[in-house]
Every structure is written in structure tokens, then in C-alpha cells.
């Protein structure tokens, strides 16, 4: 593509604004007298709008932003149908964890999900298992996204992959290291606005370029009638398979630590109520728009072979260059908003859940302050090095990241919150069963019962949680009764 200044300028402007936000948020970090709460949780001060935006953007990652429209391009309206299962994330997470989670985590003074699990179950093994799952799965998810960020800058600017990777890394690292959670949430908000308007403008432009919706749908039906059915281009998207995504990318999202931690970050119940309404609107709007862009792009620009390039290519075809440059900041924003949250979460797991629990529990305020920033920075550097030449293990783990975390955490979090008989035996059994059954299913027997394997492993994890909690209670009661 060569140097493309009309794409580079909006990107630059975007990065400068983000730097400014990071530095501004850094003032809160400097001024606070409760460093951990401020740095990893923004001082529990998020209002409804920022809460909604940081929830939606953390979740709507690069994979959904680039490969989502690409898959919709190939599969037709059936894939838009599947993607709308994500509407549930807009309200379900905040409602299910809800005020009980907000109240309990305040009582516990919890800053991370592991803090919550530690206080709830009072077990060292629960802490070790959950910290280990977070480090393994989220670190690999972050590395994969990081590579995506480098590739995207490479394709937009024409710089080499290595320089693109450095531009991307420095832009993310500076504001996360200095500004912490508050900087992440605020930049998420700005980037969410870019995604919202970016997808809307692009959708309208694609509809105009295709001669209106009726003509686009007629073209699709003429090419392959399956494209306008719910069943996918080859008719192989079965109702049970598509419905199982309500678990993987819908309700199961409640168990992703990077999402659940946001459900303890809001200021008060008013911001929660407002956040639920706004995040439902924003997630529905972005998902519907961007997947429709993928489908509608097909008659406008037939013959795209690499799915991930549909969105950048169609933007450059149907929009004036400078506007395409601004719009293409949207997938960039999607990647940044995801990696920034993952980076901070992995860092909080190391600092708060491992270091302060087991290595130096009496660390003073200034020591924790320095340590947190250093670890966040060092983690960033490790990710950069890995992205230069990604090890196979990272790529392999990333494939299991979402389903693995959901299978591990959904019952220890949700049942821990609402079922008083749940105990550490149940939680440990549930985590082990969930993760191992998920990895085994994905590897040896994908799609049991015609559904995504996450459904089966979450079901098994539930049985393990309830079974082991009740069984251990009985044996404890039997011992006590003697």
C-alpha cells in the first residue's frame, strides 16, 4: 500500500488525544492515598456512560471487529444473527453480578476478581488456580491481540511490522502505565465513540454504494440464496450451534475477569442503572452495524479472499480517503481498548493476587506504587518480545482463552455470590473440571450435541460445583457430629 498520509494523520491525532488522557488520569494516580483502588479500579468512581463504554469496548475486541465482518461477508445474514447473541452482554453482566457483587466487593475491599474469590472461599488453592488461569489465558489472549494491533498499523500505514508493533506498543503502554484503570476507562470511552460513529458512517456509505438495501439483498439472493437465510452460505449454521453462542459470547461473558472487574468499578446504583441501558444500546448498535457492513460489502466489492481485510478494503472503496482514515481508527480502537484492559488485569493479578498475598504482604504504599507501574511496564515489554516471534504455545492457548476462562470462573463467581452452601471444594472442583473438559472437548470432540463445547463444559463445571460443595458439607457435618 505504501505510505498513506491520509490514513496516518487521523491515526496520529487519535494517538495524541489518547496520550493526553493518560497523562490527565495520571494526576489522579499521583494524588490518591489509596493507590491500589485508584490504579486497578479507578477509585470505584465510574459513571454510567463511561461504565457502559468500557464494558462494551473491552469485550468487543479485534477478533469481533475484523474477523466478525469478514465472516459475515462469507456467511451472510446468518452470521449477523449469531452476532446478535452478544446483545445480552449489554445488560446481563451488570444485572447478574449486580448490586450484590458491588456491595460484597466493597465489604471485602476487593480490587480484583481473585480478591473476591479469596475472601469468599478463604482458600489458598482457589487463589492459586484462579491467578494461574488468568495469567495463562489472558496473557496469551493479550499477545494475540497485540500482534493484531501491529498488523493493523502495518496495513494502514505501510510501515514495517516491527516499527508498527513499536508504535502500537508505545501508544498503549504509556497511558496504561501512567494512568491505570481510569486512563483505560476514559480512552475506552473515546474509542467507543469512534467505533459507534465509524460503523454507522461506513454502513450508510456501503448501503448507498450498493444502491439501497433492497437491491443489495436481491444481489445476495441472486448470488446464493442461502446468504439471506439464517443458515449460512452452505446451510450448515444449525439452530443449536448458533444458539450455543448465547453461552460463549452472551451470558458466559459474565465470567471473564476483565469484564467482571468492571462490575465492581461503578460509583453508585444510579450509574449502574444508566450503564445497563447505555451498554445495551451501544453493544447492539455496534454489533448490528459492523456485521451488516460485512454482509452488504459482498455485492459492493465481490471476491475479497482474506476475511479480515473486508472492513479496511470496503472503507477505502466507498469513502473519501480522509474519512476512511478516521473510520479505520475504529478497529485500531477496538484492539487498543481490549489490550489495555488485559494488560492492567494481568498486572493486577501479579501485583495484588500473587505478590501482595504471598511474597511481601506488608509492602508499603510507595513500594506498591512503584511495583505496580514497573510490573505493568515490564509485562508490556515481554508481550512486545513475544509478538516479534510468537511462540506456538501462546497461539494455542489463545484459542481456548474465552471458553476456558468462562468454564473456570462462571460458577465460582455466580454461585459464590448467590448460593451460601457453595464452598472452596466446589469452587476448586468446578475450575478444574471446567478448564480441563473444555480443552479436551475442543481438542478431541468439538461441538458435542451440535453445540459449541463451552456449553457442555460449563454444564459439567456446574455439576462439579454443586456436587463437591454438598458432598464436602456432608463429610464436614459427619466429622462435627462425632
Amino acid at each position: 500500500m505504501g505510505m498513506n498520509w491520509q490514513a496516518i494523520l487521523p491515526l496520529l491525532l487519535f494517538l495524541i488525544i489518547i496520550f493526553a488522557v493518560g497523562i490527565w488520569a495520571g494526576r489522579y494516580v499521583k494524588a490518591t492515598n489509596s493507590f491500589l483502588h485508584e490504579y486497578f479500579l479507578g477509585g470505584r468512581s465510574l459513571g454510567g456512560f463511561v461504565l457502559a463504554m468500557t464494558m462494551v469496548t473491552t469485550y468487543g475486541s479485534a477478533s469481533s471487529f475484523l474477523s466478525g465482518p469478514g465472516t459475515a461477508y462469507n456467511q451472510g445474514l446468518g452470521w449477523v444473527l449469531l452476532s446478535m447473541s452478544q446483545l445480552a452482554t449489554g445488560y446481563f453482566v451488570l444485572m447478574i453480578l449486580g448490586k450484590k457483587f458491588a456491595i460484597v466487593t466493597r465489604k471485602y475491599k476487593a480490587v480484583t476478581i481473585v480478591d473476591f474469590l479469596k475472601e469468599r472461599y478463604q482458600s489458598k488453592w482457589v487463589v492459586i488456580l484462579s491467578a494461574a488461569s488468568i495469567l495463562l489465558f489472558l496473557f496469551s489472549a493479550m499477545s494475540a491481540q497485540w500482534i493484531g494491533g501491529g498488523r493493523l498499523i502495518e496495513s494502514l500505514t505501510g510501515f514495517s511490522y516491527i516499527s508498527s508493533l513499536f508504535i502500537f506498543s508505545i501508544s498503549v503502554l504509556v497511558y496504561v502505565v501512567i494512568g491505570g484503570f481510569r486512563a483505560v476507562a476514559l480512552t475506552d470511552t473515546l474509542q467507543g465513540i469512534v467505533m459507534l460513529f465509524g460503523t454507522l458512517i461506513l454502513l450508510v456509505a456501503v448501503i448507498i454504494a450498493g444502491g439501497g438495501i433492497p437491491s443489495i439483498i436481491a444481489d445476495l439472493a441472486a448470488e446464493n440464496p442461502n446468504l439471506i437465510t439464517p443458515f449460512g452460505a452452505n446451510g450448515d449454521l444449525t439452530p443449536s450451534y448458533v444458539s450455543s453462542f448465547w453461552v460463549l459470547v452472551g451470558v458466559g461473558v459474565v465470567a471473564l475477569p476483565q469484564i467482571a472487574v468492571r462490575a465492581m468499578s461503578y460509583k453508585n446504583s444510579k450509574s449502574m442503572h444508566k450503564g445497563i441501558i447505555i451498554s445495551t444500546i451501544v453493544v447492539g448498535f455496534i454489533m448490528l452495524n459492523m456485521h451488516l457492513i460485512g454482509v452488504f460489502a459482498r455485492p459492493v466489492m465481490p471476491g475479497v479472499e482474506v476475511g479480515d481485510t473486508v472492513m479496511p478494503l470496503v472503507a477505502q472503496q466507498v469513502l473519501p480517503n480522509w474519512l476512511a482514515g478516521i473510520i479505520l481508527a475504529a478497529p485500531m480502537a477496538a484492539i487498543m481498548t481490549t489490550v489495555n484492559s488485559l494488560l492492567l488485569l494481568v498486572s493486577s493479578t501479579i501485583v495484588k493476587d500473587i505478590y501482595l498475598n504471598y511474597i511481601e504482604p506488608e509492602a508499603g504504599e510507595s513500594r506498591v506504587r512503584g511495583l505496580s507501574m514497573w510490573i505493568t511496564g515490564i509485562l508490556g515489554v515481554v508481550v512486545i518480545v513475544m509478538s516479534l516471534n510468537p511462540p506456538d504455545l501462546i497461539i494455542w492457548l489463545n484459542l481456548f482463552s474465552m471458553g476456558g476462562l468462562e468454564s473456570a470462573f462462571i460458577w465460582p463467581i455466580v454461585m459464590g455470590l448467590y448460593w451460601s452452601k457453595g464452598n472452596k471444594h466446589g469452587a476448586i472442583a468446578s475450575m478444574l473440571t471446567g478448564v480441563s473438559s473444555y480443552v479436551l472437548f475442543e481438542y478431541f470432540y468439538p461441538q458435542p450435541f451440535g453445540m459449541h463445547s463451552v456449553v457442555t463444559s460449563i454444564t459439567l463445571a456446574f455439576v462439579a460445583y454443586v456436587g463437591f460443595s454438598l458432598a464436602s458439607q456432608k463429610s464436614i457435618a459427619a466429622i462435627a457430629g462425632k
Partner: protein
Amino acid sequence: MNKHDINQDDYRFKIANREALIGVGLVLFNFVWWYGFAYGLGSRDISEYSYIFGLPAWFFYSCVLGFIVMVVLISIVMKLFFTDMLLEDEEN
């Protein structure tokens, strides 16, 4: 009182439990609406499809109208059934 007991007698937990159940109800309703229109109307032969704003009717009702209905429903639920409360403990 033991701070680790999540079911201690706190009037706020009753409200919070009810609100979580409302969330489960909403997601079930959302799923049924989405599934019913998509596969109810979409399983017909393509020659029998009808169209709304140029989109196949199954898609319009399931994904576009379904989205709008959920937003309206959630706004109403927030106004009528979700309670404002203090999230911090009194002594803090």
C-alpha cells in the same frame, strides 16, 4: 458479624437477588424472541420470504426489532423495578 458471610441479614441483598432474577428473565425473553422470529420465519422457503425495509422479515423482526424491543424493555425495567441504594456499608 462475619464479613465473609455473604448471606448475612442485609435488606439490600433481597433487592439485589430480585434484580438478578429479572436479568435472567430478560435474557430468556430476549433469546425466545430472537430464536422464534429467526427460525420461525427464516425456515420458510426463500420464495415465500417477505421483506421489511428491504431486509428479510425474519432478520428484521429477530435482529433489528428485537434489539429495539430489548432497549425499550430494559429502560422500562430500570425505571420501574430497579432500586437506588447505598452500595457502601453505613459505618464507612
